[in-house]
């Protein structure tokens, strides 16, 4: 490797480290300036338990189908894992480091928050084989046919 390549590599290394330090400083400043609320504190307390965030879920009855919407802001899109059962849905997704750092500041550093994780009971049984999944922005949509109960 030539001398200029070495220098370029070293500069890139230091630039990355500087960006990390800047990001940490920005999140610390953001923490100081933010309006702390009990809601925030409750979030932090809950997440302190296991390092995972339980996502918000909404279920809509569309007659023959159930539409399940899961809000996953900050999740890496290709990491979303869904397990469907007749009576519940299980969700897991990896959180993007930078978004969590900006949103939750020092908590990220203290707990190393990494993922969304949750299991949700469905209001009506579904046939998992009929499920269609789609991601729109930060919302995961699952549409599945309801099982007709005899």
């Amino acid at each position, binding site marked *: 490797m030539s001398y200029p390549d070495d220098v370029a590599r070293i500069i890139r290394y230091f630039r990355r480290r500087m960006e990390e330090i800047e990001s940490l400083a920005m999140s610390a400043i953001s923490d*100081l300036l933010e*309006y*702390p*609320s*009990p*809601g*925030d504190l*409750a*979030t932090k307390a*809950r997440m302190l338990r296991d390092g995972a*965030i339980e*996502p*918000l*879920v*909404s279920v*809509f009855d569309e007659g023959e189908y159930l*539409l399940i*919407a899961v*809000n996953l*802001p*900050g999740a890496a899109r290709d990491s979303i894992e869904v397990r469907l059962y007749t009576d519940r849905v299980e969700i897991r997704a990896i959180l993007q480091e930078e*978004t*969590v750092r*900006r*949103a*939750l500041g020092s908590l990220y550093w203290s707990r190393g928050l990494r993922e969304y994780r949750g299991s949700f009971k469905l209001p009506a049984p579904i046939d998992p084989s009929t499920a269609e999944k789609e991601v*729109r*922005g*930060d*919302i995961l*949509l699952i549409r599945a046919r309801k099982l007709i109960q005899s």
Partner: protein
Amino acid sequence: MRGVYLEEEINGFIFREYSDLGRPRVLVLGLPDVGLVGSIAAMHIIRSLDLKDSVGVESYAFLPPVVVITRGEPKHPMRIYSNGEIAALVTDVPVSPAGIPALSSAIVEYARRKGVELLVSITGLGSPARLKGGEPKAYWIASTERAERKAQSLGLERFSDGIMVGPYSIVLKEAARKRVDNIVILVESYVDFPDPEAAAEAVKAVSKLTGVNIDVGKLLKEAETLKLRLQELMKGTKETLSKMGKGYEYSSTLIYS
């Protein structure tokens, strides 16, 4: 909670003025509701216009025993920020459903006593269409003919038929009774998820009503971060909304047009 120099009690709610509220012509209400649209919009207005924390609102009967500490300073969980011209009310805690009638009525009376010319209520209008990627559409409702004329300048559609549940319904009724101008901005939003994009539409409407330009670029840029931050407040608000009978909003009215 610095030294209080003016304290008023209305319907069991104490309004503690600890710095000069001034005589704001507009009071924006940002109570937690569908999609947290009002809370997000009001907080953005406070930050954008650099409004100052001026009044704490307290009720030992209807608000949880909470004090918010900001940089070592204790604060009321419900506060009014003001720059003397525009004011905004926000709360860090949901109000118990039993306290909503008293609070809503107290807010209208306090605004009347302070000479507020226009009360702007901001709320989400739960719309499953938002999940399909639709742009949030905004509507208005006005308490008086004068408020109606102001609202018509928004270029938005009037909300014609439906049922509104929650604190803003009582604010609207009380405002109409006391001839206080109240415009409710309803923006289509996610039902159970924080919706900064819907809040941005509401902020645009407030900009038009006040004639003060409030940029929403930062709000939209920070949307994903905000959604992540507000997950827990949304969970608490969902519980309160279900106790208030928010589901009635999806039923049809008895009188049809």
